[in-house]
């Protein structure tokens, strides 16, 4: 142990960290000032007005509406400044930017499994590059967990049966704590690991050096065939008895009950596990459920595949092969498909 004893904040290694620290120190300053003010007045009164004779009766003091109003309104305004600032930063935190790369996270008692879109799997470790926006798509196989990286100041619960997200952009190479922050049973305190932040080229090296595992989108394509999805949705998701899947992700979908919903991860998951819940307009309720036949990992792989297939015509995708190009040049403009996904896309191979 070194001088880290005297730190007031953990390492700041993401773009959000500085913003949250600034807010934290604002709150600390304001609350410290008012606490000391209250304590000062309190101590002053307690000493100044100490009892001097056993039976003295001080004169009653009438209340003051003006004072009451003052010390209701001023704290309220200060509190609102905290709320507005806090909400602003939170909005930024909660809304993923469009140009992110995705990493899948599956929590289970008591480990974190992560998978990059190129196929690399890690356990209780997560390698990420400096300066690229990363979006985590997370789910749990059992109890609720919470994916917490103090150095990035981010935390989000990881729930069974649904996807939750968090995003970050690392700013400083190094190794940082990864904690499970939601109590999940016996070895909760051992459900920890490390986040390794690397320089971009170093990271690309790491990413390519670890070959031998299928990219999720490729594995997803294999699942798409082995589970028989192809028979209704077409080999490349062009549709048939079932609705078209190519270019679907992120689009609005008209259902047969007249509702329109957005085709996001939650919709996709539900449609695989409980296909009768939302039927696309013009199609029959003929799809069987895959509940119990597909693991969380496989669901994420299938989803990676579906995200990766684009509308075959009119224009083929011309995505750049390596860098994180922020905009998607294909026609499914609503799809914020990140470049590693496209790079791994079987449709382009």
């Amino acid at each position, binding site marked *: 142990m070194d001088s880290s004893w005297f730190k007031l904040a953990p390492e700041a290694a993401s773009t959000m960290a500085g913003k*949250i620290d600034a807010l934290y120190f604002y709150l600390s300053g304001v609350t410290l000032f008012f606490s000391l003010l209250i304590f000062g007045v309190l101590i002053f009164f307690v000493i100044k007005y*100490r009892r001097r004779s056993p039976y003295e009766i001080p004169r009653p003091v009438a209340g003051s509406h003006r004072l009451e109003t003052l010390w209701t309104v001023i704290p309220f305004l200060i509190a609102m400044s905290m709320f507005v600032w806090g909400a602003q930063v939170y909005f930024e935190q909660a809304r993923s930017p469009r140009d992110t790369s995705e990493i899948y996270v599956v929590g289970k008692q008591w480990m974190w499994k992560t998978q990059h879109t190129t196929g690399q799997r890690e356990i209780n470790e997560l390698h990420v590059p400096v300066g690229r926006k990363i979006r985590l798509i997370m789910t749990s196989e*059992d109890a609720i967990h919470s994916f917490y990286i103090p150095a990035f100041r981010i935390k989000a619960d990881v729930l069974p049966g649904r996807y939750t997200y968090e995003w970050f952009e690392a700013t400083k190479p190094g190794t940082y*704590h990864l904690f499970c*922050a939601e109590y*999940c049973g016996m070895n909760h305190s*051992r459900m920890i690991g490390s986040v390794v932040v690397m320089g971009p080229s170093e990271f690309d090296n790491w990413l390519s050096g670890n070959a031998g595992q299928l990219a999720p989108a490729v594995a997803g394509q294999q699942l798409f065939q082995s589970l028989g999805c192809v028979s209704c949705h077409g080999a490349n998701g062009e549709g048939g008895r079932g609705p078209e899947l190519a270019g679907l992700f992120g689009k609005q979908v008209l259902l047969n009950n007249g509702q329109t919903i957005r085709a996001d991860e939650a919709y996709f998951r539900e449609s695989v596990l409980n296909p009768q819940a939302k039927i696309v307009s013009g199609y029959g309720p003929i799809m069987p459920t895959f509940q119990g036949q597909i693991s969380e990992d496989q669901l994420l792989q299938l989803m990676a595949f579906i995200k990766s297939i684009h509308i075959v015509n009119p224009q083929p995708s011309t995505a750049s092969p390596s860098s994180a190009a922020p905009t998607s040049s294909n026609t499914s403009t609503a799809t914020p498909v990140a470049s590693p996904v496209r790079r791994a896309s079987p449709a382009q191979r």
Partner: protein
Amino acid sequence: MESFEVPQPSKVNYLNAQYGLKSWLLTRDHKRIALLYLGSVTFFFFIGGIYAMLIRLELLTPQSDLLSATTYNKTFTQHGIIMIFFFLIPSIPATLGNFLVPMMIGAKDLAFPRINLLSWYIYIIAGIITIYALIAGGVDTGWTFYAPYSTTFSNSYVVLTGLGIFINGFSSILTGLNFIVTIHTMRAPGMTWFRMPLFLWSTYATALIMILGTPVIAITVLLLAFERLARIGIFDPAIGGDPVLFQHLFWFYSHPAVYIMILPGMGVISELIANFSRKNIFGYSFVAFSSLAIAVFGFLVWGHHMFVSGQSVFASMIFSVLSFAVAIPSAVKVFNWTATLYKGSISYDTPMLYALGFIGLFTIGGMTGLFLATIAVDVHVTDTYFVVAHFHYIMVGGTLLAYLGGLHYWWPKISGRMYPEGWGRFSALVVFVGFNLTFLPQFVAGYLGMPRRYATYPPEFQVFNVLSTAGASILGFGLLIPLIYLIWSMRYGKIAEPNPWHLPGLEWRTASPPPTENFLLTPIVTWEAYEFAPPEEMEVVGTVHRGRHARSDVDAPIGENT
């Protein structure tokens, strides 16, 4: 100065009116029931305290050496369950509230004496079931029982513990009901709502939360048991449930429950601050209504426990702004207490030391609550030691200090004996120092990222844990001192006068300890709350008075004088 007749101090009081175990176990006297509660909550407090010491000892080192991970998990779970459901929630309302509500309004007893006794029995049955569950093998879900861990994965006595909490809820509801009816219907002539001591306002607000909130935790525990025993899919997504639903239901009760724990403490502090500075409370009606505002707003902020749970961004925004709003009435109370001291005659007796300690610690607890209401900061610190420190500042620094202060303040009335003042002041100081040493370092550890409920932790956090454990030892020692001298004083303490502090409250205008019927004659209240007068001008209840406090509005019949 006119003469008035003092009722002859009788040797018979509620303590010696009857003897024998049966006279206690079948009593309908609210004061005796208060003592039954006093004994039982003290028992549970020390069980919870032993768990606390085990937690602190285990965390002295980063490794899991004293306790295994499973045992540690059970230890912090049981610490939470015992302290919250069996100590904090009943502590002030069921002991001091039971003793004082009738005395402060000039009534003979609560509205439903038998139901009052029943609520103690329910509490004891619930306690026995819970203790049995702990001995049989314990429970490891955390006091929050989050599903689906609690319904599907935990291999411990979840349902049995839940049954204890379920049953205990009825005790809360019955006590709350009793207080509300009593305060509405049994106030002595002249005791208008705005002449009531502020302790009663806060007890009233607490009682409202008890009867409105407690059924929700009962339902939640019931649903949890259905899912765990019958696999009915309510919370576990694997069988069609929704785990976030559990958190909504749980916190819909458990956040208001925080106010069940702290509001009575605030009431005690209002009494102590006014009476030990001999000043009328500054802004009486603001303090009174702030209790009701807290009770109402308290029901609307549960989602601030769930900012990282996956609830929607907009829900989080609304819960955040409401959480800031609920902080305001608490701040108003602190300002009014401080202003009350202005030009007062402040004594440094033990209860006042506890009250001043309360204001300091509660202020820190409240201020750090603002950090947690600020969503972006909460995302970082929730489920870390920052939260642990925050709520211990409210629950221990707030409720426990208020409880101890109140216990010392009313001890002469309860026991008829004085506690040893020197020891009292000494222990108040030790508790204050020990408490801060225990929990201040945890704010720093929390912001640095140390997660709560960790049996093992990275070595860089050890320094904070060593400080905490040292503080906890001092705190534990400080709390043992009053246990010893209060028991000692019941037999050997100086005999207390009826009004040792020279105060105007109704409870001080009768004998110490009071007779079973509290007052020899129905008191007629002619004075405002906290209207201090020299002792010779303070009428003893039951006398005909034509003194300076005579009012024309005193013959209004009971119940029609609001």
